[in-house]
């Protein structure tokens, strides 16, 4: 009987176990191993067996200690992840709630509109905002404000430190992330039995009361998921930031997060230093694991996975 149970369990769990093993565990083990080697320029034949101990970690910590940019980078990481996370999660929730109360065709149109930033190729999307926020009169925003007479000279938005640069990177990334929360929350709201909402309506509840008393409490699981996922994703994201910094739209110090700093150091300067990048990835993973753990604790994940007590003994 026990064997049968194990067999059934293995059958259902195997796809997930294989996926996790193949795409998470093995790469993780490889990454940890590479972080202890001299691996660079993708030359596995030459460097993969050249173990250098903690050299890459020492080099990285030396940079963290002595780089004059590092304070700005750490501060930028905290502000960027913190504020963009709030925008992503709350923005997604608000959009999902907003579209929940309008008719389906309008809701679909709104959702599609918000999905555009995520669907657009990164370079195209970033280029749009490059020209929008450009710090000269070729920038769309400056041009509009100058035509309206609101400003007389162009404002270098992304080069105003720190808040100008932060605002641009948060805005550009915030728009991309909102759609993720929106989809998850929309799907969760659609799972809530319609009877609850109808009954509340009959009792005279307003949209706000329905949201606060019924919808939001019932999306707790999804909220936890979106929050944790987006936190980890923002901690490691860099493509949009890379382009905005590379194109000199935003100030380098206050437009660079830890993930981008690591990317630029390991890959952006002529050499491709996979050993160093792997060490940084391990450190970022540790920060991510700790951050994820704290999020789960704060949102009382354990209480949520307790078996329901039930009403009937």
């Amino acid at each position, binding site marked *: 009987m026990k064997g049968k149970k194990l067999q059934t369990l293995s059958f259902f769990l195997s796809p997930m176990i294989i996926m996790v093993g193949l795409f998470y565990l093995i790469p993780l083990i490889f990454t940890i191993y590479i972080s202890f080697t001299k691996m660079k*320029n993708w030359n596995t034949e*030459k460097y993969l067996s050249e173990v250098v101990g903690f050299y890459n970690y020492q080099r990285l910590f030396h940079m963290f200690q002595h780089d004059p940019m590092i304070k700005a980078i750490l501060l930028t990481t905290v502000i960027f992840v913190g504020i963009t996370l709030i925008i992503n999660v709350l923005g997604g929730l608000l959009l999902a709630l907003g579209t929940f109360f309008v008719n389906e065709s309008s809701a679909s149109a709104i959702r599609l509109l918000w999905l555009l930033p995520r669907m657009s190729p990164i370079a195209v999307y970033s280029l749009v905002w490059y020209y929008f926020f450009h710090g000269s009169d*070729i920038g769309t925003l400056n041009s509009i404000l100058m035509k309206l007479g609101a400003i007389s000279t162009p404002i270098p938005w*992304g080069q105003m430190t720190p808040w100008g640069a932060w605002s641009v990177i948060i805005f550009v990334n915030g728009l991309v992330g909102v759609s993720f929360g929106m989809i998850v929350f929309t799907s969760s709201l659609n799972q809530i039995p319609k009877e609850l909402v109808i009954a509340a309506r009959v009792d005279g509840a307003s949209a706000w009361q329905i949201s606060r008393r019924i919808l939001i409490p019932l999306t707790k699981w999804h909220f936890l998921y979106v929050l944790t996922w987006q936190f980890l994703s923002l901690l490691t994201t860099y493509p949009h930031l890379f382009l905005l910094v590379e194109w000199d739209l935003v100030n380098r110090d206050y437009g660079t997060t830890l993930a981008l700093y690591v990317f630029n150091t390991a890959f952006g300067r*002529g050499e491709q230093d996979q050993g160093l990048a792997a060490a940084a990835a391990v450190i970022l993973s540790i920060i991510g694991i700790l951050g994820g753990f704290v999020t789960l604790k704060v949102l009382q994940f354990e209480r949520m996975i307790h078996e329901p007590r039930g009403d009937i003994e």
Partner: protein
Amino acid sequence: MKGKFGILVALVVFFGVVASGCIGGEETSKTKATKVELTGDFVKDVVAIGKALEENGINEVKFSAWGSGDPNSVMRVHGIVEAARRINKVWEENGVNVRVIITDKYYAAAFQDAYQEYLSKQPLGQAGDFFVNSYAFLPTLADEGYILEITEYANAYKSVIDDFYPSLIEASKFDGKLYGLPQDTEARPFYIRTDVAAKIGFNLEGLEEKVKNGEFTWSDVYQWAKKAKENGAAEWGLIHRKGSAHPDLIQFIFAFGGKLYDENSKKLVVDVPAIYKWLYVEWKFAQDGLLPKDIMSWDWAKQIHPAIVEGRTLFDIGGTWYWTEWQTKDYYGKEGTPRPLKPEEVQAWLAYTLFPAGEEGLNPVTLSQPFVWMINSQAGQQNPSYEEFKELYHELAFLMIIKASDPDINAIHSVISAHLPVRKAAAELIRDEEWLNELKNLNLNLDQEVKDNLRDIVATTVHPINAKFLADVSYMLEYTKLAPAHPKYPALADIFKEALDKVLRGDMSPEDGVEYIIQKVNADPELAQNVEVIGEVPKDWQFP
């Protein structure tokens, strides 16, 4: 018994025949050539390789060509296409039934991106067989074994190699061994708007000589730039390029007598006095409103080039390729819809000299970044029996870049992209008016596909004015400096750019800029090991 005997005899005979066939076959395969001794006679070598391939049952050789750069430099890929056609023609004429086919033609706008692409795909066997890129990347690629060493092959083609300018052949070497053939080079002229100069009484007669003799220095540049701005003749005194990938601004280091690389220690150098003077000059220009403080974030197509072609600056630090880029890109918007300049307009509005000396007693400079034809160390890998006939494929690949270096191919590239020719025979050709006329009409013996791809570029760029420009600036190569071909140089160049940006914006003083550079270098132990910091900030130095 008789029957058994018969069977036995038949078996012996059968095995004998099979064995003799096998032995004979083995003998045949032993005689199959897997390598040809290159003689230096191109036709003979091509035919020998072709025959060897044919004998081995190979009638088709596939290669791919990867290039990158400005929109007019497409010959970096089409040169290979044309070389293939010329080799195919030799085979056809000599009855060899083999063809080279260029399967993949990849052309990226940013040469750094193309390099990263090559670096990550070469070990996977997915990179191009031919790769044209900056000499600056050659040491890393050679050191990793990603490109083919061609010293031995080149020895057989000494007469061709000797026709290249020696400094460019040196730039194609790593550790004393040859890893490529020069494809192009350039100078970075210091452009002066003649119309703006005329407005402020700046006589350009004899200026070129004065610059050459070090009599016209950056102090003079400052004075005239100031005058142009104060008189309202131009919005800016000076415009220059941006970014660390375009190492134009390190010309200041050389113009102030500094260096970037130490031959003895094989290390990069942070030459503090020269770097300080560079940052100070730029800071002074920016503080006095002669150079935009935010130039490092200016847009290439909408700000930098229009400011020059529309005469909104007196001086510009640019490159030779600007000359034709201004004639093909819609940068001139003074009359409404932006349009390219005509060759006559470029000639009338822009004068050019070397990059002036930093101060009296020093020399003018220019900077070159030669591009090099490199061969993938796995060239020919997409062909059958690669391991067995590797040597033949590599020899053929070498002959392909020899052919792609034909004087006419190199001269076409030079004329249409305003780069300087890399060999003497090509330099002579661009002075030949008759040949230029043939090129203008595309009446040359070129592959139809190449002609089709060049038609628009040729129509706008092939002009006696442009050929004269190339001839005029060729002397600059005598003054040229090369950025260090050191794997850590891009990291240092990045730091220079960051410091300069902060100094230009006024966020840092020039002294702080120097300090920032040193701090950044020392922050990375691996970079610090490869860089020497020399000298101190000069205390009593004044500018202008």
